[in-house]
């Protein structure tokens, strides 16, 4: 009887699993494996594949466009870390301090997160327009006309103009994560600290900030992996150009695959992105664990 039930369970488990597993193998795991394979061949997508070993990788590391795009990703990571994590923390903390209407503020600050990066990028293309764009019109209105720029063609600021909408868009994301973590700090801890005479700055730096370290780590990881995956804003605003000046690795990968039909090199770029993201996550988590405070 028990044996029969087990048999029945096994059959049911397999049947329930099948459709999901099939789709997942076909469109996620399979492509991942093929990506690795393609990175070792020379192929334009139609002709015969020629196995070239690690030649694609060697070519890639000698390719200056790869390093330009790589550095753009690094800059995006740094800007995201400097801007997103602290401002998200400040917003979260402001909401946390008995703020009336915190739900409305949270809802508004999160709003840009739900919009497609393609739409956000297209919006900012209009804002950056030197004639009708919001930024120059605003600067004129504030009598700061000297700060007006050709936001998307001045090579000095181009990359930062492309980064700005992305950084702006996802502050609310980090804020919500950090706010949720703050709310889970036990009230007794804060109360007993203020009874003991701790001021609000003391509570912030001695209690809230240390207890938030775990979630700040998550924020940092998400900044890095999110920046490595960045694509839409750059693609829609400039196609990564001129040249590859505002390209991220994903944009370079996309151009190499679908404009130049160099599937081998392109796959090698995607593999680099995957490995960088995984490596950072694993190494950072390990390092952070060592420095984490136990309660």
């Amino acid at each position, binding site marked *: 009887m028990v044996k029969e039930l087990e048999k*029945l369970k*096994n059959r*049911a*488990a*397999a049947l329930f*699993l099948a459709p*999901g*597993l099939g*789709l*997942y193998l*076909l*469109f*996620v*795991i*399979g*492509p*991942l494996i*093929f990506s690795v394979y393609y990175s070792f061949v020379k192929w334009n997508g139609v002709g015969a594949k020629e196995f070239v070993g690690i030649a694609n990788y060697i070519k890639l590391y000698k390719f200056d466009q790869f390093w330009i795009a790589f550095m753009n990703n690094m800059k995006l990571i740094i800007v995201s870390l400097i801007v997103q994590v602290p401002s998200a923390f*400040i*917003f979260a903390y*402001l909401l946390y301090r008995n*703020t009336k209407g915190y739900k409305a*503020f949270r809802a*508004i*600050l999160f*709003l*840009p*997160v*739900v*919009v*497609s*990066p*393609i*739409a956000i990028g297209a*919006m900012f*293309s209009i*804002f950056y*327009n030197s004639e*009708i764009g*919001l930024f120059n*019109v605003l600067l004129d209105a504030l009598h700061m006309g000297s700060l007006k720029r050709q936001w998307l063609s001045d090579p000095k600021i181009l990359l930062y103009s492309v980064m700005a909408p992305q950084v702006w868009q996802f502050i*609310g*994301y980090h804020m*919500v*994560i950090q706010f949720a973590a703050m709310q889970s700090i036990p009230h007794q801890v804060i109360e007993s600290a203020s009874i003991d005479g701790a001021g609000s700055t003391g509570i912030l730096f001695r209690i809230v900030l240390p207890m938030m370290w775990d979630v700040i780590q*998550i924020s940092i990881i998400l900044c890095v*992996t999110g920046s*490595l*995956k960045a*694509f839409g804003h750059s693609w*829609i605003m400039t196609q990564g150009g001129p040249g590859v000046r505002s390209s991220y690795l*994903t944009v370079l990968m*996309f151009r190499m*695959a679908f404009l130049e039909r160099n599937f081998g090199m392109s796959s090698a770029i*995607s*593999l680099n992105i*995957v490995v960088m*993201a*995984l490596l950072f*996550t694993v190494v950072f988590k390990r390092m952070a664990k060592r420095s984490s405070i136990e309660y």
Partner: protein
Amino acid sequence: MDKIKDQSAAVLKYAVLILSSLVALYPFIWVILSSLKDNFEIYSNSFGLPQAYQWVNYYKAWTVGKFGVNFINSVLISFISTGVVVIISAMVSYSIGRIKPNNALYTFFTIGIMIPLHALLIPTFILIKNMGIMNTRLSLYLVYSATNISMSVFILVSFIKTIPSALDEAALIEGMNFWQIFTKVIFPLSKPGLATIGTLAFLNCWNEYVYAAVLIAKPAFKTLPLGIASLKGQYFTDYSLMCAGLAITIVPVMIFYILFQEQVIKGMTAGAVKG
């Protein structure tokens, strides 16, 4: 003295919050207002309300700009893919979280969360080409369903584990088969979890660009993000048309967000726990 300090701190706090809310919100308001102005007025009256509401921009975006077709495609693709994801992820989660708890399979399904979709793009393109379904909505139904499974299983398995197992054991003893337990016990009791994965999958599908860009070239099957991209290429100087197209893309997501705010936030931040 302390009271004054407290009050000025409170004023500062609300000032910062209100100002940053404006920074978050105003770009969208500007686009929506501009979508109702003509090109000259966007320039001459950048911040004000439209003097005469140019609803014709929407008509133009819907027809000439092809946003009507794009909108219908986005609706179809987002709803169907979401439906498929919800059902098959619930089945997978029931299987590996309940009938035969299986940690190895759970890990296998959730590693997908960490894989950047760009890494799957070329092989998926080749696969879809070989399957002979390029330029079909079917290609996106399949790809979107598959790429949303990982996160959905991650959220749902932990949800299903909170349902008391006495319930389905009792159902089993009463003679229900596994399919009946799934449809009559597990599925209804998982509704909050299903709502979370459904809203998340829906937003992902609505906003997705790269797969669609690679798999769909025929205008008849393009989605809204593709519509924006081609509009930007063709009519970029027609700003009121652009703004109307953007509004057609953005406003539905905003309404969706306002209606399902809690689920949207829960779903989108669930991945954060996973890191």
